[in-house]
């Protein structure tokens, strides 16, 4: 079985995220890391491998599209236990929107199919920066695969998959047969930390770097200029004006709170 896990290198959410002058996300000066939400995807990929009757026969490939530093995201996935990495890096990709990102990911997955097919494409529930949560569905559409997305529980037996999904109005069980696209939420199980052994082993694991021409994708089809949407303006939210803070003493807090709510006509 071949598993490809799509991981994204994102600006650290606890640092100050900001925009460049061309309204693209600043991915250079803001420190980055493997998206926390994609760690769950790596974890589930590794669990699929470990639960397989013959784990050695399963290859987990971590795939990312991003600037040079994005190789860090792949390295982290390798340290956690992925077998190999593929980093698509090309100046033309900068500023790509979700349709273009999914196009390049799909092309990379097609290329990986050359080594004996791809059975499962695993994604996180969303990027912590763009947070559209649409790339997995777009990938499924482009690869013409079923999607079993936003899984909080993943079960599989051979090529049969079942997931639990907390939908908008119902909790659902979704089933499909591989090959498929799977996305997992942060409810699917804590992601492991790389062990010392994992960190050492990762140094010897293959990490390929591909450009758009390796994938047969034309540079004019991706990047900021080819985006199907355009950001007209970005504006930092004005800081909230400091509110009133009271310390509760013998019930004074509750009275003041209710006074405040009444003054705002909530009561």
């Amino acid at each position: 079985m071949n598993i490809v896990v799509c991981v994204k290198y994102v600006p650290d959410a606890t640092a100050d995220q900001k925009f460049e002058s061309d309204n693209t996300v600043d991915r250079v000066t803001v420190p980055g890391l493997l998206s926390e939400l994609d760690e769950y995807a790596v974890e589930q990929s590794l669990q699929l491998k470990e639960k397989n009757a013959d784990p050695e026969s399963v290859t987990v490939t971590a795939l990312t599209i991003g600037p040079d530093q994005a190789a860090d995201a792949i390295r982290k996935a390798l340290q956690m236990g992925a077998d190999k990495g593929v980093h698509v890096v090309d100046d033309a990709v900068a500023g790509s929107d979700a349709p273009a990102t999914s196009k390049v990911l799909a092309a990379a997955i097609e290329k990986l199919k050359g080594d004996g097919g791809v059975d499962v494409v695993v994604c996180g529930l969303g990027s912590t920066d763009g947070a559209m949560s649409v790339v997995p569905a777009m990938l499924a559409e482009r690869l013409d695969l079923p999607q079993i997305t936003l899984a909080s529980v993943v079960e599989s037996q051979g090529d049969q998959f079942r997931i639990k999904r907390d939908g908008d109005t119902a909790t659902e069980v979704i089933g499909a047969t591989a090959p498929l696209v799977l996305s997992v939420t942060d409810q699917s199980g804590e992601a492991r930390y790389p062990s010392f052994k994992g960190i050492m082993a990762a140094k010897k694991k293959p990490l390929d770097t591909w450009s758009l021409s390796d994938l047969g994708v034309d540079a004019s089809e991706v990047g900021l200029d080819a985006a199907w949407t355009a950001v007209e303006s970005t504006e930092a939210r004005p800081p909230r004006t400091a509110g009133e803070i009271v310390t509760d003493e013998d019930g004074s807090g509750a009275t003041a709170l209710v006074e405040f709510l009444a003054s705002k006509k909530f009561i």
Partner: protein
Amino acid sequence: MSEILVLVDHVDGAVRKPTFELLTIAKRLGEPSAVFIGGADKADAAAEAVKKYGAEKVYVVDDTEIKGYLVAPKAEVLQQIAAQANPAAILITSGAEGKEIAGRLAIKLESGLITDAVDVQEGPVTTQSVFAGNFTVKAKVTKGTPIITVKPNAAAPEESAGAGAVEKFSATISDSAKKAQIVASQPREATGRPELTEAAIVVSGGRGTGGNFEPVENFADSLGAAVGASRAAVDSGWKPHAFQIGQTGKTVSPQLYVAAGISGAIQHRAGMQTSKTIVAVNKDEEAPIFELVDFGVVGDLHTVLPAATAEVTKRKG
């Protein structure tokens, strides 16, 4: 005027409030056409409901053949209606399912997609709130038919009678769209409280409740509010995940948000920072949530909330 397609969000034929908001937005952009994908026996009632909010046309698609499958068939239905109607925009509710339908549809129609709009004006120009609500972004679709998913509460639904002309549409669904099967579905238990994403007031509890949500729930009920929770409260098993507010839960933008026993981590803020008025009760005066509040009480929620509940109830008489 061009048609604006609105995908009707409903549970078993009962149209949900965000659909009325989408119809209100659609009226700004063109002529609203509702697309109802559901049981044929529920279509009339749904058509009546959307007509009240300005739907000039209602495409009715019987879902007998597709309701057992996830997302993909609905994207095919919309693709086929769009091919016929040539709409100026397609509006879909920003939930898990809505965004995924939109994602597949964008690829099919080779059209730009904007998700999680909190406002849509003529153009269409959308407003989104990004980076945990720290930035406001205005954007436009530049290719194909604009596909926009809109968050609940983006507009106040305005009643306005439309013609509501029903057009039965029979879509052709491919076999490959029927590969992800809904094996079982358990509707969410009704709480008797407003829907979290639609509520005007939300009262949330965190780790500080210590697992006792009664003060939070009673206070919510005194205000007619929905109840939410932090991830710490969800991870502790005190509330199901459907209650979680934040980056990996729901995003809410109510008139009033009350955080009780919640520290205000960035991931929690991402889900509530755009609320109009924010109130917190926390026993630690250093808690970061106090940076956001319009009004804060430093105190124990187990005494402050019950006393406040009693006071609200008394005032409401």
